[in-house]
Structures are given as structure tokens and as C-alpha cells.
């Protein structure tokens, strides 16, 4: 079959899976008084539609910031505004000030789901396809298979179409940024990434590699003339994009400061639920409240590892290094680990799986057990099947040379790749068992949080392992010129 038909089949399957997941519940469905992320997004539409711009981020009589106050950058607010206009057209009740709070109906759910699907089709899916076709090596069938796996990645589908968020917008824009950089269109790349940054502040995690890569590239061209000019062009692009996005807030110095305060709240409690819990002291770094707060915690951890990889990238701004640095600086960007490490997909599949597994408590709360089980099994199966992970995982390809040297001294006859394979199955089984127990078994009375904590601990150990591993791969890179040539 021709490529175009294979691609359209992949995209259609991805869309089908997305829409099928959206039949299920969303966060905070029928749970007054606060509801969940779904209500937050709807509330933002209500606020942006009915209030003037200068009231959006302020606590006023019409805007109660304690009830899902806007705490995302301006681009999200504009997106909400656009959605609100459509909503008004369809049914004015959906965005009526005050009266629409906690509004829930079947047709409204359809409308909200459709907005997610629309942005996904517009931004994320084309980016993924282009990415796979320009930056993945292998035959065209392998490229299609990779695109297929990314499109069916359950974490994103469940959070966007189950829980309800617009992650595909910010991730898609960031991906467009990477595409731009990869194709050598640095200005376009920085424009797209700045937009991503202005959509969701979470993208800051990825900003360091972008910054280091572009700066390193300029330095390489010579800071005196060409490089400097390039640097100026890039910084102008970024500044102008920022200025355009923040334009309505620039009239009064109070405005941007308030927005910043909303975006990075200093006093935001990470442990709203379990402040007095004994466990809390133990898992300062591990505990997951929501996906967002987990990433906040990871930030501290990542920072420790950011430094070496950023310095490396600065001195050696190649695309391969850039992608590795992305993974290293932010594990939230797990998607790109696919391409960075196509050969060692085994480890990557596991990584992806664990990021995803750690969302289990959240998804359980939303009543999304069924799509969770189905999509994760489907993804695991398909990624292993299509990319034949287990067959490819030889020591060489997994880049375990360093560990080999280390272990050889103590245990000369150890077969590392076999250990990795076994470890893969073991981790998988342990995670499956944990999922099972946390769904069906009641925790002992003394330790009510036993299962979520076990899930977190196990996930955390894996994250740590991956951070070390990917750093090792990046820092050891110079010896492996072959793969570098391939990706460049």
C-alpha cells in the first residue's frame, strides 16, 4: 500500500481512539462544589467571554479567583475566548456569567470534547506526522509505525480526552518548535516554542534545551558577525512574539505582574489532601497530587541533572544532542524519547509506561478505569509488536557500554541485555499487580495510602534510573559518531 493510505489509516485510528475515549467520564463530573479540570476550562470560557481583559487575572467582584481562577498564560485565555464565542453561538447558557457555574450536560460535554479534537487535528497530529517523516530513520513503514505509536500514546489521550485538558496544544506547538529547529528554520522554531510557552508555563521545562541549542549554534557560527546577527534575529522573534501575546496586559505595569503571580503561585500547596499524613514527610519528592504538581516536584530533581546536559549541548549544538537534552531536562517530554532512542525502545516503552502508570490514582478518581486499562494494554501491545522491542535490545544498541565495564570487574559472566529484558517483564508485572490491587483491594486500615504510595515509589525509582541512563547516553555520546551522523 502507498504511504498516504497507511498514514491516513494511522491518523484515523488515532482519531477513533481519541473520540472513543471521550465517551467516558471527565474530571469532576457531577462532583460539586468544585468539580474538576473540565469545569476549570469551561469557567475560563465564561470569564474571558464576559469580563474585560484587565479583569481576567484579578480577583474582582465578577471574578472569584478561588473558583478556578485563570492561572495559565495569555494564549490559553485567548483560546478560551475563541471557544467561548463558539459556545455562545451554540448555547448561550454554557458561558453565562455566574449562572453557568458547574454547568454539565451531554451536549456541552460533546462541545468541549470537540474543541479538544479540533486543536489536536490542527496542531498536534500534523506536527507528529512531520516529525516522524523528517527525523526518524528507518524505512517508510517504520516511520509510519513510529507515528502510529506516538498517536496512540495513551497518556496524552487519557489526560486530554478523559480527564480533560488541552495538552496537545502546548505539546504540539513545542513539537513544531523542534521541527523548526530540526529543519534549520530557527526563527520559525523559536516562534512556535514561544507560543507553546505562552500557552502553558509547563513548557518552561523544555526551554533550557531550546535556549542552549540556539545559543550554542550562534556561538559556533562566531559571535562577532554572523552568529551575533542570528542571535539578534532569534531574540527579536521571541521578544516580538511575547509582546504580541501579552499586548493587552502591557498597558498597566500591574497587569503583567499579576499574571506572573497567577502563573507561578509561591504559596501553592502541593499536598492539599494529606497535610497531616505521616507519609507526607517521607515522600517530599515522590508524592503525586496531579500531573502538574508531580512535574513541579520533578523540577527540583531534574535541575540536578540539567546542568551537565545543558553544558554539553551548549558546547556541541547538534540535533541529536538537542533531543537527548530534551529528554534529560524534562521527563515530561517523554514522547520524544521515542525518536531519541528508537533502538532501545524497550527502555523507552517502559519509561513511557511508567510516566503513564503514575497517573493511575488520578484517573481512578475520574472514573476512567476502563479506557485506562484498554488503552494502556493496546499501547503496550502495539508498541512492542510494531517496533519489535524485545528482539532489538542487544547490549550495543542499548548503549550499556559503561555499565558493562563497571560490572565486568565484579561479575564477568553477566549478560546485561538479558537482565534488562527480565527487568522489563518484572517491572511490567509489578505495575500490573499494583494497578490491580489499587483498583480491587482495600488497603489496610492503618495505611490508607499504601497503594498510591507504592505506585509512586516504584515510578520514582524508574524515573531516577532513566535520568541517570539518559544522561550517561548523552555524556558518553562523542564515542558514537555513527549514530550522530545518521540523525544529523
Amino acid at each position, binding site marked *: *500500500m*502507498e504511504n498516504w*493510505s*497507511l498514514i*491516513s*489509516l494511522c491518523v*484515523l*485510528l488515532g*482519531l*477513533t*481512539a481519541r*473520540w*472513543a*475515549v471521550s*465517551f*467516558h467520564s471527565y474530571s469532576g463530573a457531577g462532583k460539586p462544589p468544585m468539580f474538576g479540570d473540565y469545569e476549570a476550562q469551561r469557567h475560563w470560557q465564561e470569564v474571558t467571554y464576559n469580563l474585560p481583559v484587565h479583569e481576567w487575572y484579578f480577583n474582582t467582584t465578577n471574578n472569584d479567583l478561588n473558583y478556578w481562577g485563570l492561572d495559565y498564560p495569555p494564549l490559553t485565555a485567548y483560546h478560551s475566548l475563541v471557544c467561548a464565542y463558539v459556545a455562545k453561538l451554540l448555547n448561550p447558557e454554557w458561558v453565562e456569567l455566574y449562572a453557568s457555574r458547574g454547568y454539565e450536560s*451531554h*451536549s456541552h460535554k*460533546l462541545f468541549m470534547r*470537540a474543541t479538544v*479534537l479540533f486543536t489536536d487535528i490542527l496542531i498536534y497530529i500534523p506536527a507528529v506526522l512531520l516529525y516522524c517523516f523528517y527525523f526518524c530513520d528507518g524505512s517508510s513503514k517504520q516511520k509510519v509505525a513510529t507515528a502510529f505509536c506516538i498517536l496512540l500514546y495513551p497518556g496524552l489521550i487519557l489526560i486530554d480526552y478523559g480527564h480533560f485538558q488541552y495538552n496537545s496544544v502546548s505539546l504540539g506547538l513545542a513539537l513544531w518548535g523542534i521541527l523548526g529547529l530540526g529543519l534549520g528554520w530557527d526563527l520559525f522554531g523559536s516562534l512556535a516554542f514561544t507560543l507553546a510557552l505562552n500557552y502553558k508555563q509547563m513548557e518552561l521545562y523544555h526551554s533550557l534545551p531550546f535556549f542552549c541549542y540556539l545559543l550554542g549554534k550562534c556561538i559556533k557560527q562566531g559571535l562577532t558577525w554572523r552568529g551575533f546577527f542570528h542571535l539578534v534575529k532569534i531574540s527579536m522573534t521571541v521578544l516580538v512574539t511575547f509582546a504580541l501575546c501579552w499586548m493587552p496586559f502591557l498597558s498597566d505595569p500591574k497587569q503583567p505582574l499579576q499574571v506572573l503571580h497567577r502563573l507561578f503561585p509561591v504559596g501553592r500547596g502541593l499536598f492539599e489532601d494529606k497535610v497531616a499524613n505521616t507519609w507526607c514527610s517521607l515522600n517530599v519528592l515522590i508524592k503525586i497530587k496531579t500531573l502538574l504538581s508531580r512535574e513541579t516536584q520533578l523540577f527540583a530533581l531534574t535541575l540536578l541533572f540539567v546542568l551537565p546536559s545543558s553544558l554539553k549541548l551548549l558546547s556541541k549544538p547538534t540535533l541529536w544532542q538537542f533531543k537527548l537534552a530534551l529528554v534529560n531536562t524534562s521527563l515530561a517530554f517523554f514522547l520524544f524519547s521515542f525518536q531519541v532512542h528508537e533502538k532501545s525502545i524497550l527502555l523507552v516503552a517502559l519509561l513511557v509506561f511508567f510516566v503513564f502508570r503514575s497517573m493511575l490514582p488520578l484517573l481512578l478518581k475520574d472514573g476512567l478505569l*476502563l*479506557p485506562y486499562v*484498554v*488503552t494502556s*494494554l*493496546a499501547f503496550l*501491545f*502495539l508498541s*512492542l*509488536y510494531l517496533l*519489535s522491542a*524485545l*528482539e532489538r535490545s542487544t547490549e550495543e544498541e542499548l548503549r550499556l557500554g559503561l555499565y558493562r565495564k563497571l560490572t565486568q570487574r565484579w561479575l564477568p559472566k553477566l549478560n546485561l541485555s538479558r537482565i534488562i529484558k527480565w527487568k522489563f*517483564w*518484572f517491572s*511490567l*508485572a*509489578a505495575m*500490573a*499487580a499494583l494497578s*490491580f*490491587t489499587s483498583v480491587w483491594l482495600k488497603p489496610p486500615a492503618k495505611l490508607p495510602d499504601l497503594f498510591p504510595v507504592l505506585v509512586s515509589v516504584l515510578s520514582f525509582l524508574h524515573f531516577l534510573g532513566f535520568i541517570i541512563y539518559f544522561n550517561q547516553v548523552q555524556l558518553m555520546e562523542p564515542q558514537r559518531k555513527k549514530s550522530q551522523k545518521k540523525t544529523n
Partner: protein
Amino acid sequence: MSATSHLLKVVIQTVMAAPMTNDQSWFYALALGVSFLKCLLINAYHSTDFEVHRNWLALTHSLPVSQWYYEATSEWTLDYPPLFAWFEYGLSHIACFFDKEMLVVPNLNYASPATVLFQRLSVIVADVVFFYAVKECCKCLREDKGKDLLGKPSFILTVLLLWNFGLLIVDHIHFQYNGFLFGVLLLSIARHCQNRHFEGAFLFSVLLNLKHIYLYIAPAYGIYLLRCFCFTQSNADGSLQWRSFSVVRLVILGTIVLSTFAVSFGPFIALGQLPQVLSRLFPFKRGLCHAYWAPNIWALYNIADKAFSILGVKFRLLDINKLPKASMTGGLVQEFQHSVLPSVSPLATLVCTLLSILPALFKIWHRPNGARGFLRCLVICALGSFMFGWHVHEKAIMMAILPLSLLAVDSRKDAGIFLMLSVTSHYSLFPLLFTTQELPIKIFLMLLFTIFSLASLKTLFRKGGALLNPLEVTYLLGLIPLELICEFVYPLTVWQKTFPFLPLMLTSVYCALGVTYAFIRLYISLLTCSDTTKKTKMQ
């Protein structure tokens, strides 16, 4: 806990080991993939058929056999043959572990989450029969080795059957057990292809006792078995050799079929309930057409009648007061009163159906042409009854599409017919899902299936030009504006209130043209195929 984790590990390893080691791993991947998709659809819209089957679960579980065909608390009385009732009876014993309330007869329209889960899962699990049947059918294909996987006939056939758009939306959204039933049908076809005729005949008689709609294709079975199995030999030119008749085979076949029917209907005959059972199975109270006209001859007949009456009124040939009222609001009423053309009686439809399949039956009696001839005749029987039958439901077209898939991967002529028929009739299934929530999914799935069948059959028959001629392509492309008008533009216009039935009418008439065309082409190919097969036999 270690025990559970060990168990899970074993399960995962066996599931995963299969694709890694087995050459046929793609089959499991396709089957698992479609099962995952079906699981995601558990929460989707389900039609009244869901309540129908819940009611049957309840009444078979809580009532004695003698009451099954008399029970009438719900309007959805048991109108499938006894074996299907027994199937529901078996299911009900698992259902009680999910939710006992669904097994109470007076609990009308009961649909708790556990009930939905159980009923949906029962359809998904019963599809295992279908998977097995498809696998057996693939074995009957001649395999081109060394070809790319995506170009293999068996791969294409598997996708065409397992991922069939109609089955997915009718079974897993609309709710029915067609996958399981078609599994039995395909398995019986596969057995005939493998020359295991006794098994095939047994499976088909079981199928008839599961759902009697398959009676429509029984003539093909009867003639084929009599001609190709009971007569053991043919003359050199393929004509009948009267002396080769084997009485033993006929007796064994008869015993198999009759004993199946005896097991199924025996208890009811013993209870003296046969007339009651039959009256439930064959209700003739319904009208010629369903509320939404299935895309067959009668849809064209109705529209012609309507056109004549409008023209007649316009040119003052007819008096508007003398016309029956219903014809002017048509489409919504079940009893369609023809105003100009003569009304059609059930007997007339029966005669038309018989007349439409007779040439095909005669053809396979005269020149049987092996299993392929049988299959083609079977498809024609299914299509003929769809075209001319009384109160045909649009879902009945599946009976023609699924067996036709087997032919489509085998010859390029049939592939063209298959494309025409499947695309048109799948589109005609769209009105089954009228909820906005399911609108995207039906479009995505339809595109998925259509693009796959077009692209894969094109690759399979790469040599020898296009599969569809320009006219056919234009007709199929016409479905896109039709869909846009019916689902997106028309609801916004002012006519939506005055003529709400118009999009449905348009859909069924447009699709009826395509289905009729495919029917005629299939007939031509059956009647003219003898020469080509002779050549292949010579080779």
C-alpha cells in the same frame, strides 16, 4: 500478591510470546487491536436492541421453557429461534455475577453500568467464534509467499472481515450479536471449502436455529450440497452425472439437519407450542419497508410512486383529494400507501425474491463451479432477498458483504463489485447511529474501512488497470456531498421542520441505486464466469 504478579507475568508473556515467535502474529495483532477498540466503545450509544437482549436474558433466566415464547411483559418479545434463546440462557448464568437486577423480567429498560459492561463484553467475547472462523477462511485462500505482508490476500481478508465497518457499528455501538452469528456462517463456508461438508452442513443448520434470517441463503446451501456433494461426480464438461447419486450422503446430511432442528424445536413441538413459536418468528404485521427504507428495489419503487403522484397532481392528471394521505407525508409511516403504482403484498415480494435467485440457483445446478460458485450464489441469494424482501432492515446487507469479502480478495472483478457494494451499503447504515456523539466515530470508522479496502485491493490487483470505472468513482464520491448535506447542511435549513424525512429518503434512494448496480453486476459475473473458470481448471 506474588502469586498474582506471577500469574500476570505468565499471561503477558504468553500474549506477547505469540507475536514474537509465530508467523501468523499479525492475525493476533489485528484481532487484539479490534477487541481493544470494541472495549473502548462500551460506553457508546446503544439502541433498543440492547433492551431486547436484556429482556431475553431475563425471560430465559427466570421463566420455564414453556413460557419463553408466550411471555409478553416487554414489547420486545423473543423472536429468535430456540438455540439463540438457549444461548441467552447460558449467558444469563454469567450475567448474575455482574448484576442480578438485569435478570428480572419487569425491570424494563434496565441499564446499570454493570449491565452495560456485561452485555457489551458478551458481544466482544462471543466474537472469538468470528475470529476463529476468519482464521479458517484465510486457510482456504491460495497464498502468495514472499509478498509484503500488507499485500497478502489473507492479511487483507482478515482486515476486511475483522475490522468490518458494519459489524463494528451494528454490534458494538448499535448492539447485536452479528459477529458471533457470522462467525458460525463463515466457519460453515470454510468447512465447505475444505471439503468437510458434514461439519459445514451441521454448522449451517445450527445457524438457522440461532437466527432464521439466514433462511434467505438456505437455497444456495441446499442446491450446492445436493449438486456437489450428493452427486459425487460430474461429466467432463461440468454437467450433471445422474448415476453418481449417493443416497448415503443424502441420508447423513438429512439426519444431521433434521436432528439439529429436532433438538432446537423438539421441546416446543412436544409442548404443542410450534404455531406460537412460528408466529413469533415470522410476524407479517409489519409494512413493506422499515421506517427508514433499506436501500433496495422498494425504495426506488416508493420514490417512483411519489414522483408520479407529484407529477400527476402538477399536470392535473390526478385529483389530490383522492390520493391516500400518508403518501404526502411519507417516510415516517410504516404502512406506505402507494398512490399511483400498485401496492405490494408480502406474497409478491416472496415471488420477486424467488424469481431473483432462481437463475443463480439454476446456474450452480447446471455448472457448479466449486466452492467459488457456491459462494457467489450465496451472496446473490442474500442480495436478492435484500433487494426484494418484505420489511427488510438495512442491516441485512451485511449478509452479502461479509461473504463477498472472501470473493473480493480472489478476483479483480469481484473486488470492484465488493468496493461498490460495501461503500454504498456501509454508508446506508449511517442512519442507524443518529446521535451527535457517535457522528465522528462513524465517519472515522467508515473512512478507515473504505480507505483500507480501496488501497489494499488496489495493491492486490496492481496489474490490469483500475478497479472502478470513472462512473463508479463519481458515484462513490457523490456520497461525500450527500453526507455533508444530510448531516450538516440540511438540519440548518428551514425544511428540517417541514420535511424531516427528506435526508433519510435521499440517502436510501441514492444508496439503492448503488446496491442495485452491484447486484446486477454480480449477476452478470455469475452468469458469464463459466469460461474463465474452465481456463483456470485447465491450468
